[in-house]
């Protein structure tokens, strides 16, 4: 049990070369087994983190500040669970979807890169060493670029290229920020940094470090106006990759942003720079409204969901910008809920692409008759995105609205409601095409069970956690309280 934190990262990392060596035949079984194991470990770590103090694991017995320490608290446990569970479900889904979308000689490489990506994302969430964060950030980003480039359309290549340019600038900004912090404090350990930064907080070096690290994280998070890489990347990536990255990568970037803001720099510096209310709040509101508005006018449903993701990223940042426990709780629940909903919806589109070869509105005409089960999954997931009561999306939006009222900013609640109305519009466009248009061909071609079962796992989870809210609420609120407690 005591080695779980390192196993969480090491197992997928070492499995990647093994999968390459094993070749095509064994790639999928081994990869999905690893996915299930890491999901199990992440759940175990979350329950350990919930039961007590943060768990520290000294790499190779070298304790901080000499060695690199892994640190599991409730927040990292939550993120690990999202990555682990989504990763496992998506990998089960991958068998048929990948067989259809990726040429046979590259499939085992695809699975290897997928494992590297999981390993990198896990590493970011578990390490307590800021330079280690940078290394894992680059591991996950590099594998994400490669995964996106495996899409069938040549535009996947340009999408990956643009993501690479933006992502590398973001990563280098983070690296520069870490360097400036090391200059001032002489340590890379997060706990040491947190205790040493206050003494030097009022210097331009630390302010510059904060600016570089925040902007770097915001680029990776794709907050408007740094979002231009995201829509194309999610649209042209293979369905499995869209589902996985939309459910995990942006969440992990948000985690990095939260760690930088709360753990490293704390409240005093934030109050000085006013960056919460003057920078993050307007940006998040623009993202929430703008992302939803642009989504309404898309003709490709994958692209529509990508723009909807921009709006959802706006919700995460809004919870951080409102800067109270309730709103941050809402934000953290939304991380989990959005992973279920958006992951599920992209998997629905994976089913559609599997049968129809594409997911444009024209191709989805009459889908309600041709693929009734798949279409119904989209409707449920869509209701979640809108935030209808009894879906998971309602819970997170509720907490965000209550948080906004607590800060006396009732108009923010108005913006959230307005954005939900626009979400009704873009989900309705798809529903209308699916159920009220004549299909191009009339024969029924439902997706195979191997795709439907994982898809429904995610979609039904988003309903279950909308009704049975207690467990996620407990995790999210204790994480939010821990973050605010650490600041005082």
């Amino acid at each position: 049990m005591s080695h779980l934190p390192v196993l969480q990262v090491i197992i997928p990392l070492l499995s990647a070369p093994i999968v390459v060596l094993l070749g095509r035949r064994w790639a999928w079984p081994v990869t999905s087994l690893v996915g299930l194991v890491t999901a199990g470990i992440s759940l175990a770590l979350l329950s350990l983190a919930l039961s007590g103090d943060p768990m520290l694991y000294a790499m190779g017995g070298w304790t901080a500040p000499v060695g690199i320490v892994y640190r599991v608290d409730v927040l990292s446990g939550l993120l690990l669970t999202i990555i682990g569970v989504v990763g496992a479900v998506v990998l089960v889904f991958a068998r048929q979807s990948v067989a259809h979308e990726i040429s046979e000689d590259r499939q085992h490489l695809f699975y290897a890169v997928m494992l590297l990506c999981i390993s990198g994302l896990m590493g970011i969430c578990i390490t307590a060493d800021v330079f280690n964060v940078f290394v894992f950030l680059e591991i996950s980003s590099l594998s994400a670029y490669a995964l996106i480039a495996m899409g069938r359309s040549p535009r996947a290549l340009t999408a990956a290229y643009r993501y690479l340019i933006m992502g590398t600038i973001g990563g280098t900004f983070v690296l520069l920020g870490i360097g400036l912090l090391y200059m001032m404090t002489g340590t890379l350990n997060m706990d040491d940094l947190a205790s040493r930064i206050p003494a030097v907080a009022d210097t331009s070096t630390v302010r510059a470090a904060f600016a570089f690290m925040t902007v770097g994280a915001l680029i990776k998070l794709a907050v408007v106006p740094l979002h231009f890489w995201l829509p194309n990347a999610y649209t042209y990536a293979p369905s499995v990759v869209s589902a996985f990255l939309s459910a995990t990568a942006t969440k992990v970037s948000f985690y990095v942003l939260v760690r930088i803001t709360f753990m490293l720099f704390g409240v005093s510096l934030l109050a000085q720079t006013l960056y919460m209310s003057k920078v993050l709040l307007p940006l998040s509101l623009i993202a929430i409204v703008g992302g939803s508005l642009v989504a309404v006018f898309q003709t490709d449903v994958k692209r529509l969901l990508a723009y909807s993701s921009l709006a959802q990223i706006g919700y995460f940042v809004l919870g951080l910008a409102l800067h109270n426990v309730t709103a941050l709780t809402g934000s953290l629940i939304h991380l989990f809920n959005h992973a279920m909903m958006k992951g599920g919806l992209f998997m629905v589109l994976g089913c559609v692409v599997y049968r129809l070869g594409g997911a444009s509105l024209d191709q989805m005409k009459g889908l309600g008759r041709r693929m009734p089960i798949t279409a119904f999954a989209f409707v449920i997931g869509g209701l979640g995105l809108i935030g209808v009561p009894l879906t998971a999306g309602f819970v997170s939006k509720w907490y965000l609205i209550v948080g906004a009222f607590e800060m006396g900013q009732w108009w923010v609640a108005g913006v959230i409601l307005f954005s939900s109305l626009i979400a009704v519009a873009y989900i309705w466009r798809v529903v209308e095409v699916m159920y009220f248009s004549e299909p191009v061909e009339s024969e029924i071609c439902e997706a195979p069970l191997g795709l439907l079962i994982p898809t429904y796992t995610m979609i039904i989870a988003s309903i279950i956690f909308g009704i049975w809210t207690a467990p996620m609420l407990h995790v999210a609120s204790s994480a939010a309280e821990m973050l605010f407690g650490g600041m005082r």
Partner: protein
Amino acid sequence: MMTFLATTPMGGMGLSEYNYWLIVVLMMTGLYLVISRSNMVKTIIGLNMFQVAVILFYVSMAKVSGGTAPIEIPQLTDAGIQVAVLVEAVGETGQVTDEQVTQIHEIMGLIKEVIAVLPDGDVASALHDDSVRQLGIGAVQRNLERATMEASESGVQRTRVEAVETLERTLSEVVVYSNPLPHVLMLTAIVVGIATIALALALVVRINEAYDTIEEDEILALEANS
């Protein structure tokens, strides 16, 4: 806490910290290339410059004025171990025996030998630096002479204990070396940079196969038409 840094980081922002200004210029040149170039390979070159600037930034901040590479000098390590044992023994008893005085003389002889050899040696680049010669060797010699005098005053325990302390301080002044950690970090960052550039160039090769061009303007036009 701050002793590992010889220069004040960005505090003054005067021209004395010209290394940081050069890095900023290099970094912004790289960023400008990334933004302004339409040719994908040129963009990647800009991206690489941008990354290299940050690597230079780390290496530059690790430099301690007059510091040498953190390489072990065996004789001094022996002396260091002996002094550590001595300090511990004196710390426990508060007394310096006559035998230990002899030992102090031996260690001082050892250090003097090393210093005499070092300026001609390969490793001691620090001792070629004038400021260090003054600060380092000068202080070492003065301290040694004082310690010798103190140690020979038999029976005066206070000066004997002071001699041991001086000796300990002297040893730490003999070798000044740069902070090795940023260099180690940059080895990792360089590997990450190579991986990024390799992946980016591989993508450009594939883009060239698919679109028959690597000019972003032309690709955007092709994508808009399709």
